[in-house]
């Protein structure tokens, strides 16, 4: 199960947070934990370089893309390997929508589309779509090209 997908800006403000099956009272704790993890480790990291951490049976894969930090949290079958696949799809889709690694402003300008992409990629905790071209078409309600 993918437990959370979170986007934050360079100073740790939340841009998007989506939790799946995480009780409301634990969300604040996760949010501050992830932001701190990013503040401690993401300085000087190259775009899309993946970092990984684990706490007990929960895995976290995170990276930076332009001005935005991206965190994906998972457990069970969504271990570090599956999560790296998920975050790869997310970064590709965001880059595709924004045309480049986004500044915070650009990210917010494309906010609606990014939300739609996330909706195509993660369906309440499960990975649904993995190809950026297909996702790009699907958020406009266009069928996939191979079909």
């Amino acid at each position, binding site marked *: 199960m993918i437990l959370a997908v979170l986007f934050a800006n360079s100073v740790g403000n939340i841009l998007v*947070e989506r939790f799946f099956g995480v009780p409301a009272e634990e969300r604040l704790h996760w949010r501050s934990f992830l932001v701190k993890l990013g503040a401690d480790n993401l300085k000087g990291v190259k775009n899309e370089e993946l970092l*990984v951490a684990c706490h007990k049976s929960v895995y976290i*894969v995170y990276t930076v893309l332009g001005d935005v930090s991206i965190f994906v949290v998972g457990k069970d079958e969504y271990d570090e390997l599956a999560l790296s696949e998920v975050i790869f799809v997310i970064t590709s889709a965001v880059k595709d929508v924004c045309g480049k690694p986004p500044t915070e*402003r650009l990210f917010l300008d494309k906010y609606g589309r990014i939300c*739609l992409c996330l909706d195509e990629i993660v369906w309440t905790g499960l990975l*649904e779509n993995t190809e950026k071209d297909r996702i790009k078409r*699907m958020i406009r*309600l266009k069928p996939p090209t*191979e*079909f």
Partner: protein
Amino acid sequence: MAQPLVKKDDDHDDEAEYSPFLGIEKGAILQEARVFNDPQLDPRRCSQVITKLLYLLNQGETFTKIEATEVFFSVTKLFQSRDLGLRRMVYLMIKELSPSADEVIIVTSSLMKDMNSKTDMYRANSIRVLCRIIDGTLLTQIERYLKQAIVDKNPVVASAALVSGIHLLQTNPEIVKRWSNEVQEAVQSRAALVQFHALALLHQIRQNDRLAVSKLVTSLTRGTVRSPLAQCLLIRYTSQVICESAGNTQTGDRPFYDYLESCLRHKAEMVILEAARAITELNGVTSRELTPAVTVLQLFLTSSKPVLRFAAIRTLNKVAMTHPMSVTNCNIDMEGLISDQNRSIATLAITTLLKTGNESSVDRLMKQITNFMSDIADEFKIVVVEAIRSLCLKFPLKYRALMNFLSNILREEGGFEYKKAIVDSIVILIRDIPDAKESGLLHLCEFIEDCEFTYLSTQILHFLSIEGPKTSDPCKYIRYIYNRVHLENATVRASAVTTLAKFGALVESLKPRIIVLLKRCLFDSDDEVRDRATLYLSTLGADDAVVETGEDANEFLFGSLDVPLVNLVTSLKNYVPSDEPFDISSVPREVKVQPLAEKKATSKKSTGLGAPPTGPTATVDTYERLLSSIPEFSSFGKLFKSSAPVELTEAETEYAVNVVKHIFYQHVVFQYNCTNTISEQLLENVTVIVDASEAEEFAEVVSKPLGSLPYDSPGQTFLAFEKPEGVPAVGKFSNVLRFLVKEVDPSTGESEDDGVEDEYQLEDLEVVAADYMQKVGVSNFRNAWENMNPDSEKVDEYGLGPRESLAEAVNAVINLLGMQPCEGTEVVPSNSRSHTCLLSGVFIGNVKVLVRLSFGINGQKDVAMKLAVRSDDESISDAIHEIVASG
């Protein structure tokens, strides 16, 4: 005040600074959402408003019920628009708002229409939205469409239906299970993602059917799997099949091993790592099987991608726990990872090296770790400290280097958990490696000179009081202890006083000097410190310094508190000051945990029958009060133990009955708790008729029927038996509930005058040996064991035959004896071949019993057990052996 004028000379910067959502406010956006109701819809404007609503929701903002309903109704109006972009937004918004059951009806017709639309993408999205918001009834109506969608030619539609199926399986399993033919067909799909989703769903549908899973794995491992994600799933299912099938590992032909091995050569890294992990986790994996997996993992250790390095080292770390020798080839690569930027990887590398390193590499490793420790967080440091502790126990000769390392890091900065981990490690090393004792104690003494944690200081002082007096020169610790009396807070000072007293009691030559020090403590500013000093001075015989410290003083100072602290606190609170002094022997010894059955019963009643909340949970105290209020039982003496309630009926039956067994020295009382769950009935004169023909040593003496048992108002009936004094008599009792049943008019609540005699068969009840044992733990098993008379020890060996696992065998013996496991020894590490379990309890007649169980398991899963018992009464040691022999 006027805003200072700022010249905006760079438009680009300005643009980057301001967020399109700057100053966004929920109330205003909800106002804006009224555009959804416009007769002439502006799709662009509507999309912008939806984006703003999404932004609010994604920031953690919540809508009240009324707000959400209003937005939801407005959003449904947008189905009128034919704009594709807007429609996609509408689908997302409805999912985000997750409307309540009574609101869903508004959109279902629109969504059903979309689900039958010719536009595939409408179908895919409406399926996802519908499955998110509907309930079981509606699902039955659309089931036909979903089944068609699963085998739809368009992969997006098929995936939408399959992923929805995975979610719906949690809430409506019986419906989704009917789709297995379609899902089976989708597994053969040429679209990679459809196959992945179908495989996941099919496995979930059939996960309890071993044969079906085995067939699925067999066919797919031979066929084509199109995506790495699906391949990873298949590997996991394969290892599950291998684990469940009793493969013949002796001859080496493990089923599906070749498949896993072939996956090690797959082109996707994810698949290779998954296969390597599956091989390393095989039950009883051999070195030959491990080698290819470890080889590929070794290659990943030097990968440029942190995720792959992490995955590889995490797997090797697990392998090192069971097969350290297989991992030694990777040592050089792992040493390279100690300086890895990613601290999780570095910590895993170090802890793995600590497991695989040999004695000669310890010094070199410690040097590397010392540099590493300064720049990692406490949570990682704790992992390293724990690994060093195990290493030291493995190579006791290296204790000097390892103990020095621990004492050095103890002096550095760190939080409580970290310091506690170090102190715990030093304590364990002192206990297990006799040579390390003196240096270890001195390290701890130095630590308390500058320790900011009261808890740790008091723990160390307590430990010093046990170990210090037994060293060659106890005198050298006194300075450190007495310094605490001057420099610390009251809690630590009080502990220091106790420690001094214990040194005085155990080391006769130090006693006069200790008495001098204790006398100085009489002027302390804190009551507790002064009280302790006064008490210990009198215990040590300060008035008559030549008197040797007596047995009583030692028992007082070193004897453990043989009643649970919680019970003592409760009893003291209930004690009313009077002429009669408080009697510690009146404190109950049984630690009462609320039994699961009672919890269930409580929750069932409050939800199922809408009864008022039940009274406080029955504890030993309430049982005791209840029984002593019944004159027939007053002569039975003090209650020894009450069991947890045993259910005698199945859930959801007409009459719910459970029984609590109360054990007295010469009697056993069964308390039958009865509940009548039929509102049209009143039961009267309720008794339980017991056939005790299979319980020869028991003779029925008292029966106390229940006068009336109205609907949903629990009542009790009792039955008492006499049994031989102090003997752990066992037996089986069959029970029948007998009563007079009267019809009740539910509208008026009045019952008829005449009733009918009726009976209701209940389950059998057993009195077992464990009923005569109280679960009473000891804080330090080793001390308790050594303080017990060695002559009372009885040792014997038993063969327990083939067992499912070692853990299962350990649990069975613990349950058979009904004793309290000590020091966490009830937990058996996975894959271990042997285990020692320590148990403690009080047997009927208030006889303390300690048990040491040593288990071993062989390749055929035959378990052998050595049982050593010490107790206050030799005959009880024999009785424990009899229980095990007959169990």
